[in-house]
């Protein structure tokens, strides 16, 4: 095992140990419990920073690719021996399934994500200690929090895709339970947490199916997707598999169809895209993040940061080599749709958490879009910034909620900058980073992937231009949405004067915010060179070939000036909301606009649609099946009972004819009752019927036997 793997596995094992320890602790224990996982995360962070230094040092000296070690205690013992193992092509399916084992694979992306998770873990732990009511924060909650930390850490260093999905599955279970335990209980919230868990499960199942398809033809081990010499080219096994000498052959891969014109590589890629879309709440799975708004703010930060922004992007980064051009187009369309719809819905929300939910999933649309158009490093950079920034914004929202005793309606907030100035300032910094404010946002000042986007859209026919213009419009809209959010919470005058005492900033709540805001600024800044590291790890030859003569002058002019989009947001918001909510209300009530407002306010009815189609369909099917089960049950029993009764009657009658009249058994117990002959006319009719039926069945059987040539 390499030094790097040792350090990372130790750092990941610490939360696991803490989790098991706390799971066994009695629930009444409260004092000192939060400090145990915090200490584990701190030690883990120190180890991870050491790993990062080692990795960076090593990558400067020589380009280090992915390194993998495996433990085969989990793998099936026999992978061959199928009676019909060979495919028509002569390749034995699942020949590489020996790689279905737990292990560690390390590269630059893994280490960066690892450190990021631990940094956010420290911030969220400290914030939780100041935010959660001690009644709800027992050993079980912290045990689950530690297990969640372990699963996320282990997932980013996992050596194969299936292992990564398994660990995310554990993480999803933990976050579901955390939300259930930590949230004040009422019936409405129940559905929400189930919804997001089921959506994460759908993503997991889709990814498992994708893995199975990959495994049938090759492997889903990281080493086979990215070869030993780094991400500079695709894995040798993968190229051999599709019989192409260059990576671009893989991009244009087409072979015999499975169904609807899709071949196995496209199918597998699409399944991974569905998985990533489920994880990152992209179109059409956009409804679930808004379902989790009732959970405490630190857990929203985990869900939106780790799950929505981070995990989907990380999955796409890992499966990137197997995504063909067709699949990438789907990815780009999904990203673009999510981006626009998410921001439009976020623009009209009045719940301070819902605005962030919809904005975060919209921003993940940028990640999908950039992956789709082939800008690998820009996509990953966006994922990292979104992870940090939205975790920070949710913590800010938590701080605001803490100071207003849980008021979530933006229309009743306002003027909090005077009460919690540090939180207001730090949230403003994060908003400015996300909206690409020049000098502060560094690498984000111009959306990093926008050039690739322009080239890709220019090369597309028909409606391809939408893939450039919609994101550019969305970039301006983002500024409006985030500035609106900030202004309605912190700017202007308070709109709820009767709120009474308002709590100020506290150290436990502001210190994590400071950490996250600093991280958000530095991660996007060119000084840190994260983009350079990410660009170095991008697979070579995976960018779609773009014709050079494509393009037009208006697009180029927009591209040159898009960096000034951040100015439009504050101007628009101050002009609408400077005088309070009156102007906004007037616009909202305008005929036509009010309908659009309602449609967007309800999240375009995504949730209702999903509930009607999936939950309604399942409930209907369940009722019908249950009805059939009952019917079947009674029918089978009735037929069996009738059959036995018929045989019994027949035998009893025959017996009576041979040995004389049979008495009713009931008479034996009563004693004095007159004996009754069983075989009445009615009985005889019944017996004849039974005999005829039996003869009919036997005759049919004999006829069948004769025809079958027995």
């Amino acid at each position, binding site marked *: 095992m390499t030094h790097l793997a040792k350090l990372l596995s130790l750092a990941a094992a610490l939360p696991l140990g803490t989790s098991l320890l706390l799971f066994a602790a009695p629930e009444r224990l409260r004092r000192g419990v939060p400090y145990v996982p915090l200490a584990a995360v701190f030690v883990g962070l120190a180890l991870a920073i050491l790993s990062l230094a080692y990795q960076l040092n090593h990558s400067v000296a020589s380009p280090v690719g992915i390194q993998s070690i495996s433990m085969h205690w989990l793998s099936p013992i026999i992978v061959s021996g199928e009676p019909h193992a060979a*495919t028509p092509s002569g390749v034995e399916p699942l020949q590489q399934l020996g790689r279905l084992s737990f292990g560690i694979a390390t590269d630059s992306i893994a280490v960066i994500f690892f450190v990021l998770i631990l940094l956010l873990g420290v911030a969220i732990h400290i914030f939780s200690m100041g935010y959660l009511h001690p009644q709800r924060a027992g050993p079980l909650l912290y045990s689950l929090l530690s297990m969640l930390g372990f699963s996320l850490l282990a997932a980013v260093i996992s050596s194969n895709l299936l292992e990564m999905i398994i660990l995310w599955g554990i993480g999803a279970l933990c976050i579901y339970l955390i939300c259930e335990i930590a949230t004040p209980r009422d019936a409405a919230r129940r559905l929400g947490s189930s919804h997001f868990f089921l959506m994460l499960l759908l993503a997991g199942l889709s990814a498992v199916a994708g893995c199975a398809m990959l495994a049938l033809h090759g492997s889903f081990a990281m080493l086979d997707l990215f070869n030993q010499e780094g991400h500079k080219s695709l894995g040798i096994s993968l190229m051999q598999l599709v019989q192409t000498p260059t990576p671009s052959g893989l991009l244009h891969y087409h072979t015999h169809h499975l169904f609807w014109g899709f071949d196995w590589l496209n199918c597998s890629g699409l399944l991974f895209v569905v998985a990533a879309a489920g994880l990152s709440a992209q179109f059409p799975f956009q409804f679930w993040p808004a379902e989790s708004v009732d959970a405490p703010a630190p857990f929203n930060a985990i869900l939106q940061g780790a799950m929505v922004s981070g995990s989907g992007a990380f999955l796409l980064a890992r499966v990137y080599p197997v995504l063909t051009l067709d699949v990438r187009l789907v990815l780009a369309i999904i990203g673009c749709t999510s981006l626009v719809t998410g921001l439009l819905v976020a623009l009209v929300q009045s719940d301070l958490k819902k605005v962030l939910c919809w904005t975060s999933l919209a921003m993940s649309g940028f990640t999908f879009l950039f992956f789709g158009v082939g800008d690998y490093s820009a996509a990953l950079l966006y994922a990292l910034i979104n992870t940090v920034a939205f975790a920070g914004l949710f913590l800010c929202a938590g701080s605001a909620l803490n100071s207003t005793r849980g008021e979530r309606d933006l229309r009743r907030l306002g003027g909090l900058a005077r009460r919690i100035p540090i939180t207001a300032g730090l949230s403003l910094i994060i908003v400015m980073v996300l909206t690409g404010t020049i000098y502060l946002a560094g690498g984000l000042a111009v959306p990093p992937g926008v050039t690739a986007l322009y080239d890709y859209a220019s090369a597309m026919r028909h409606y391809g231009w939408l893939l450039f213009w919609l994101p550019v419009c969305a970039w301006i809209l983002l500024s409006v949405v985030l500035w609106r959010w900030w202004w309605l919470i912190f700017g202007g005058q308070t709109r709820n004067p009767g709120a009474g005492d308002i709590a100020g900033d506290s150290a436990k709540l502001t210190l994590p915010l400071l950490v996250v805001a600093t991280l958000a600024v530095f991660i996007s800044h060119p000084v840190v060179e994260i983009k350079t590291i990410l660009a170095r790890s991008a697979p070579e030859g995976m960018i779609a070939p773009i014709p050079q003569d494509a393009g037009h002058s208006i697009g180029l002019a927009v591209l040159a000036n898009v960096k000034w989009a951040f100015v439009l947001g504050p101007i628009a918001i101050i002009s609408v909301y400077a005088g309070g909510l009156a102007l906004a209300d007037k616009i909202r009530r305008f005929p036509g606009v009010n309908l659009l407002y309602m449609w967007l306010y309800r999240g375009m009815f995504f949730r209702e649609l999903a509930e009607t189609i999936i939950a309604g369909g399942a409930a209907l099917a*369940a009722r019908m099946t249950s009805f059939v089960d009952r019917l079947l049950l009674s029918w089978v029993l009735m037929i069996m009972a009738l059959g036995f009764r018929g045989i019994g009657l027949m035998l009893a009658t025959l017996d009576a004819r041979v040995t004389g009249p049979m008495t009713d058994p009931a008479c034996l117990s009563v004693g004095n009752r007159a004996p009754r002959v069983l075989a009445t006319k009615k009985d005889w009719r019944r017996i004849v019927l039974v005999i005829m039926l039996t003869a009919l069945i036997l005759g049919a059987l004999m006829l069948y036997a004769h025809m079958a040539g027995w």
Partner: protein
Amino acid sequence: MVHFYGSSSILTCLILLPVIGSLMLLLVPSAKLRLIRWSALTVLVGMLAVAVAGACLFRWDMPVSHGVFQLQQKFLWIPALNMHYFVGVDNLSMPAVLLVTLLAFISGLASFGLSQESKTYYILLILTAGALIGALVSLDLLLLAVFLQIFTLSGYTVVSLLGGARRHTAGLKFNLFGFAGTLALLCGTLVISHNTRGLPGLPQGTMDIVTLTTHPQLLRILNAAAGSHIGAIVFWLLLTGFAIRLPGIILHLWLPEISVESPAPIAMLIMAGSLVAGGYGLLRVVYPLFSDQALIYRPLICEFAVIGVVYGGLCALAQTDIKRLIAYWLLSQASYVLLGIALMNALSIQGAILQLFGLAIATPLLLWVAHTIEQRAHHTDLSRLGGLAAQLPDLFRFSIIGFFAAMGAPGLSLFFGQVLILFGGFTAVSSGAAGSPGIAPWQHTGLLVLVIALAMAMVTAGYILWAMERIFMGPARPEFNHFIRLSFQERCVMLLPVMGIIALGIAPTIVVLTPMRPAIEQLLRAFAGAG
């Protein structure tokens, strides 16, 4: 040629121990309940100890070429029927025996303090466990059928005598279906015996599993018969006989009633034990003997299994009673076992075995959780429960593991079984049945079947989460404030399955697959010759 390695009477001791124990319990006065209870537990611990001693004597690394059955004992029992008392274990049955003795011990422990606790109850519990063990170690088909019928009768008696309000219906259904299963098995056995009559060295035919599976001439005859309708009929008879135990769809009608009406420890033993016996029978008898037929009917059986998965899952979704929900969940999950076996490849078989063991260990935990709730709330109606996480935090912790295992969560007992079954399914679909004359390709329907099986994991998670939320989440109800915490005995009953679930989830290869390797290889060798 049958080899006898380590001929021993330890398996006979294991079968006789419950019989002797029951006879001794008969002598104890009924009023001395404490003495009866501890005596019964001693018998069950003794059975566990004998099984462990057998496992210690067993050579787990015996090469397959030397014959796989050990600790054998054989003598002619009923000459007229050519029925032998023939017992022995291999790498498949030994772990199953250990599992069943452990289940019997858990059931015995769970019976302490039960309202139905009595001398009759304990005698029938011990006999049920003994009959199950007898079925697992039988190497004669007729003996196997006899033990399964004893299991059915003892189970029927205890349910009918000591069950709930609808105990007679539940007992009758269990008995009828069990009897039908035994009858199917008997008919199949007699036809096999008839077909092998007159062969060299076998003037009366044979019902000996070892001879049938290892004798090349017999296999040829059986496989030749497989081409005719007789072979197909025998295959379906045996398949039905064991699928009733598993249970498969349509043959499951006894299951919900047993789950609801039986005393909880008896339901734990009957449901988990019957599942093990059914799965074991398919792996031991049906598939090795009729691998040709199995290959011909593979698509049909797989589709039948997936219908079971869907049917059970949808029925579970419609339930409002915890115990009925568990019964339909078991039907759905047991259908995965059938699917794994029917797919007939290395991965799916390993998956089916993992799923079988995982289910056998998770079912008692779920039933016991339902029982502990019933003991306190006096009902198991999901619509009238809620908020128990706050009032019974310890039960909640155990239940998290049970319910998550039930939905096939990663790291717990059912996950790897299902993953391997699905991967095996994709392998089967990919390879199809190319090269096998007379076998239709299965790519398209096979893919659909697997996609449905995969999608059903969502439904399973849906109803399990729904049930868990209805029981434990939501606002705490004041009427449950008086609930007492879990007793030491209740925790012990839960702890053993929880440990098993975690062990199977974390190290399935070490716990199950590696010890079973020779048996799995033997099975795959039988499959390899098919077609």
